[in-house]
């Protein structure tokens, strides 16, 4: 085991075990609790056509036991010891975690090592769990108009890249997945060299490292998983998608293709979301919600932390009886203003203050800190976290104008519109 180096700014320590498993540790003694997370570098991005939802399905089946832990016993053991545990799947990663008191965290550590190597993915549980996942899809997508709009908008915004597929999977794909698909996925991606551990909280390095080494180092390195090489070709011309669904209020979603952390523009794009929609004093809120009462809520979203280029989106939930076209016109007018006139120094400072304070507020919980370290590590390395605040501070008004002109390009956007109907769908 080799100690690599310590980052002064974040105080994260990095170790790499002989089998390639990376361990990132952050001591924080504010409260006697520890968050332990295992991140696998696999998500819906790694799936093939016809096999969507595989990573998420496997996440469910990881709770079905090993030769030493009975099915569903994992969650019971964590709860019995006062801990909280769960797991989630995104397009880029699958993450398992528990937060427990410092004297109990070893229980979680050993069970994660056990299921990294020995998950049974039991045959008896496969078909019943399929029904659970299909129900989850009904509840979280099919029965949620805005989530359904988001799904269909992504499916149109991307033509080649796997981000066009939903993480939970298409209903028919879930139906057609076999247990062998899960076993193959597990063997290929759940290897120590394709995973990393993040621990944050009240632990001592001297105590926890030998425990991690004892539990995880015996798991053999796996073959290198295949790389995802799909690249979304440049969009030429606006795309539109309408979703008619039983709902009360219309919803407008504008999705613009935008770069990830690999582009230095990511800082200005983060600030642009705040310039447009950060708080009630932002132009989008003030104009659409407060003054004109066209929308109930508005938002702008951008996440630079993704494996491949993602999107910059502007969304609005409309007031009853308002026209999506009118809301689109207002949003476009506000975006055009940022493209044609420099924002004021004060507005830039306001945006920077908001980004910096959220960055600090997010460190208030050990779980939040572990999540931040993990998502940066999954996307190019946790050390980039240290450059974030400096990157934000360097952004100028001209940068905001430049990225607005470059990325808020109507020829490279997909507009999704939810049209409420009264029909049961």
């Amino acid at each position, binding site marked *: 085991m080799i100690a690599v180096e310590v980052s002064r700014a974040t105080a994260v320590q990095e170790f790499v075990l002989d089998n390639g498993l990376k361990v990132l540790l952050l001591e924080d003694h504010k409260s006697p609790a520890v968050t332990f997370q295992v991140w696998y570098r696999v998500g819906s991005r790694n799936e093939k056509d016809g096999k969507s939802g595989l990573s998420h399905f496997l996440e469910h089946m990881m709770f079905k036991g090993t030769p030493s832990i009975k099915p569903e016993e994992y969650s019971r053991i964590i709860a019995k010891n006062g801990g909280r545990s769960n797991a989630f799947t995104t397009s880029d990663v699958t993450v398992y975690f528990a937060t427990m008191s410092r004297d109990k965290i070893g229980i979680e550590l050993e069970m994660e090592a056990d299921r990294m190597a020995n998950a049974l993915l039991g045959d008896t549980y496969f078909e019943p769990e399929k029904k659970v996942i299909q129900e989850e899809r009904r509840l979280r997508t099919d029965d949620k108009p805005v989530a359904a709009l988001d799904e269909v908008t992504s499916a149109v915004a991307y033509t080649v890249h796997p981000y066009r597929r939903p993480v939970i999977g298409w209903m028919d794909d879930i139906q057609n997945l076999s247990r062998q698909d899960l076993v193959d996925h597990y063997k290929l991606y759940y290897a120590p060299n394709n995973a990393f551990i993040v621990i944050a909280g009240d632990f001592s390095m001297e105590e926890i490292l030998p425990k991690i080494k004892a539990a995880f180092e015996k798991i053999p390195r796996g073959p290198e998983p295949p790389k995802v090489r799909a690249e979304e070709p440049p969009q030429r011309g606006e795309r539109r998608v309408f979703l008619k669904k039983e709902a009360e209020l219309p919803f407008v979603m504008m999705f613009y293709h935008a770069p990830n952390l690999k582009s230095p523009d990511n800082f200005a794009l983060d600030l642009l979301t705040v310039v447009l929609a950060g*708080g*009630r*004093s932002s132009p989008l809120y003030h104009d659409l919600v407060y003054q004109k009462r066209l929308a109930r809520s508005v938002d702008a979203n951008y996440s630079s932390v993704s494996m491949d280029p993602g999107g910059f989106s502007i969304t609005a939930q409309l007031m009853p009886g308002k026209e999506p076209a009118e809301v689109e016109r207002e949003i476009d007018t506000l975006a055009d203003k940022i493209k044609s006139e420099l924002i004021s120094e004060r507005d830039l400072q306001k945006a920077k*203050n908001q980004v*910096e*304070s959220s960055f*600090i507020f997010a460190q*208030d919980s050990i779980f939040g800190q572990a999540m931040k370290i993990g998502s940066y590590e999954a996307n190019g390395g946790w050390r980039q976290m240290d450059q974030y605040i400096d990157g934000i501070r360097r952004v100028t008004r001209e940068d905001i104008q430049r990225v607005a002109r470059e990325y808020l390009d109507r020829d490279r956007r997909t507009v999704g519109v939810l049209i409420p109907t009264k029909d049961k769908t």
Partner: protein
Amino acid sequence: MTKFFPRVVTSVCVVILAAWAPLLDAALAPKRSVLDNGLVLLTSQQRSLPMVSIELLIEAGSRYDNEEGVANLVARLLTYGTKRRSAPQISDTVDFIGASLSASCGEDAASVSLTILKKDLATGLDLLADF
């Protein structure tokens, strides 16, 4: 925090979780004091981050409703203008310092939550005093 509320307050109570003193163990170790006007102040200090969370609890929850929904409506409208500041002025003050401000109503208490950087504490307290 709200669960302490019915026993300790007269009408209003402020809970401040802040960054002041080093904490030797994990206990919250709250301190209680009462201002001349009866406002109860509960504080708990933590040094690790330069931020302060303030929870203003007002004994005006829905159990005091004469007409259904009034307590909630009043609580929700607190941040939409005071005698000294209009709604846009409140939003601009909060947004400029990157604070987070929200108001809500429970069965016992109406509450205003403010999370703010330590350097902006004076601005934050001035805002809260208005409500």
